[in-house]
């Protein structure tokens, strides 16, 4: 592993602010950097984000690079891919981490292929193989039925991290340094993908990923009307409404509230799963919740093996009664 060192994290910004996944990356990266005795470095791409990127120093990041160019203001796979490939080839980090986000999930593999290395996506745990300084990446497979630990000998060692698998870092210092700004020349870069439009389909109310309490429904809800009952409970608890993939595929709720391996990953304080069987693909999305409450009329549903409290019964009766009782206890 000659000449390759340091742990790099690819930060993300949105509307000029550092995205929360970046802080999770700091936690993940820091542990690795400490184990290696090397530096934790963060790299951002964008336009006019130097000031904002500088904040990361207070979280314990030792170096911050910013690739600045007006064309990098919005994420573009070709431009970001080419820039990162160039910078990584020059600076030779040992490890490069991205969040498993809209950006990271595709950018990570693209860069890995271009750099001739491998990447493991959607990792829930990272460690250093002490004997050789390689990255051990733990990833759920078969929809979460099993966890696999992967290793390769490529450089850099790469991974994308699953949301909420690492706690967001906290401020550790008040000292800042200078951000290394690299102005990139994009004139030779072929931009083959063009963004024409962006349509928001955000549901009103509390954002799912940030909600303290989530009420989620699955196949057992049966139709869109049923979700209105769950929504009422969610609102009363000042929480958010979520759903399993089955409910979204059936068109009962928008796909933006899908929780699961290809949906949102959430880690609320309370997760109330209604009419959800507990299949791995869904549980992967919510298993980090502090308390899981399951309501299902099938006593054999796997969810009861993964929840903390449960009621075996028809949700149509249980949920309204539950809400009524909560209200009466006010």
């Amino acid at each position, binding site marked *: 592993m000659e000449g390759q060192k340091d742990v790099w994290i690819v930060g993300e910004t949105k509307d000029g602010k550092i995205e929360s996944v970046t802080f999770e990356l700091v936690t993940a990266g820091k542990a690795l950097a400490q184990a290696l005795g090397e530096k934790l470095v963060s790299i951002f791409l964008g336009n006019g984000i130097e000031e904002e990127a500088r904040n990361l120093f207070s979280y314990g990041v030792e170096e911050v690079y910013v690739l600045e160019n007006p064309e990098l203001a919005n994420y573009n*796979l070709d431009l970001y891919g080419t820039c990162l490939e160039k910078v990584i080839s020059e600076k030779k980090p040992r490890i490069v981490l991205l969040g498993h*986000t*809209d950006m990271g*999930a595709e950018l990570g*593999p*693209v860069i*890995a*292929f271009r750099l001739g290395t*491998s990447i493991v*996506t959607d990792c829930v745990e990272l460690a250093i193989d002490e004997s050789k300084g390689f990255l051990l990446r733990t990833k*759920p*497979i*078969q*929809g979460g*039925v*099993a*966890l*696999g*630990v992967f290793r*390769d000998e*490529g450089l850099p060692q790469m991974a994308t991290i699953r949301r909420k698998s690492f706690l967001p870092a906290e401020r550790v210092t008040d000292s800042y340094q200078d951000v290394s700004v690299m102005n990139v020349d994009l004139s030779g870069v072929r931009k083959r*993908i*063009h*963004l*024409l*439009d*962006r*349509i*928001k*389909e955000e549901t009103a109310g509390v954002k799912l990923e940030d909600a303290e309490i989530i009420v989620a429904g699955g196949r057992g809800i049966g139709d869109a009307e049923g979700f209105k009952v769950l929504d009422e409970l969610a609102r009363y*608890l000042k929480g958010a409404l979520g759903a399993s*993939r089955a409910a979204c*595929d059936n068109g009962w709720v928008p*796909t*933006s509230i899908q929780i699961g*391996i*290809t949906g*949102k990953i959430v880690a609320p304080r309370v997760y109330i799963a209604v009419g959800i069987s*507990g*299949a791995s*693909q869904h549980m992967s999305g919510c*298993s980090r919740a502090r*308390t899981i*409450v399951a309501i299902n009329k099938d006593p054999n549903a*796997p969810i*009861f*093996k*993964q929840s*903390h*409290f*449960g*009621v*075996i019964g028809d949700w149509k*009766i*249980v949920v*309204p009664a*539950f809400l009524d*009782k*909560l209200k009466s*206890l006010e």
Partner: protein
Amino acid sequence: MNIVVCVKEVADPEAPFDSFRVDTERKVIFASPSVMRVLSPFDEQAVEAALRIKDKMEAKVSVISLGNKLDRVVVKKPLLMGADELFLLEDEAFEGGDSFSTAYALSSAIKKIGSYDLVLCGRQSADTNAGQVGAGIAYFLGIPLVTVARKIDVSDGKARVEKVVSDGYEVVETTLPCVITVSSELGQPRYPSIHNIRRANELKPIIWKPADIGLDPSLCGKKGSKLHLLKLFQPVYESSCHIIEGDTPVEAAHNLALRLRAVRII
């Protein structure tokens, strides 16, 4: 318009999770015999995406599947849905590959097919959940990549794609040929038609071995992989569920509310 779709045969991901057993010694996941073999769901949606284009214009849809001892009923399904031809990269040498060796083999096969305007595959497979083969194929063929599509329109040498993002979707445009990975938001794949089912026994796939696509077996499957699986294990569930009871469902619901209040969870 030539469309190539890559599909993978997997154990039915909808099977109950206790029908999968993790063998930590051999580092394999065994599916019980009752688990059916199916097309990886996102791949099936990729076939649907191709057929929707074929509904609107002259197009030839070629399907490729890589593996060993492939279930003919499973891999023929795209043909029964309306695809035109099926290539199987079927050999022991192709087994156990990672995203790299898989993408490499598929790209070699696509090059052998010759003309391609569009390459489609699922955003990730139901078994490995890696989500990289699309990127790999795009790399090896030197063409653009758009991931997580929920709608694809092609015209005048361009693809206009609605791409799923966490708070909605983006509309992007790229030139053909390109690779597009497909997500379930595309919608339900069509049923195989009875007309095609009746021909099912006569439909024959073309089978390719590593040599047929110009690859040495050492570049395929497990031998050609870069990633190694060190350890495989089942996640441990620590919680023991406290079932709240009651003489009636209403009473149980009330007890649940009381309990959660009492321990200050709600």
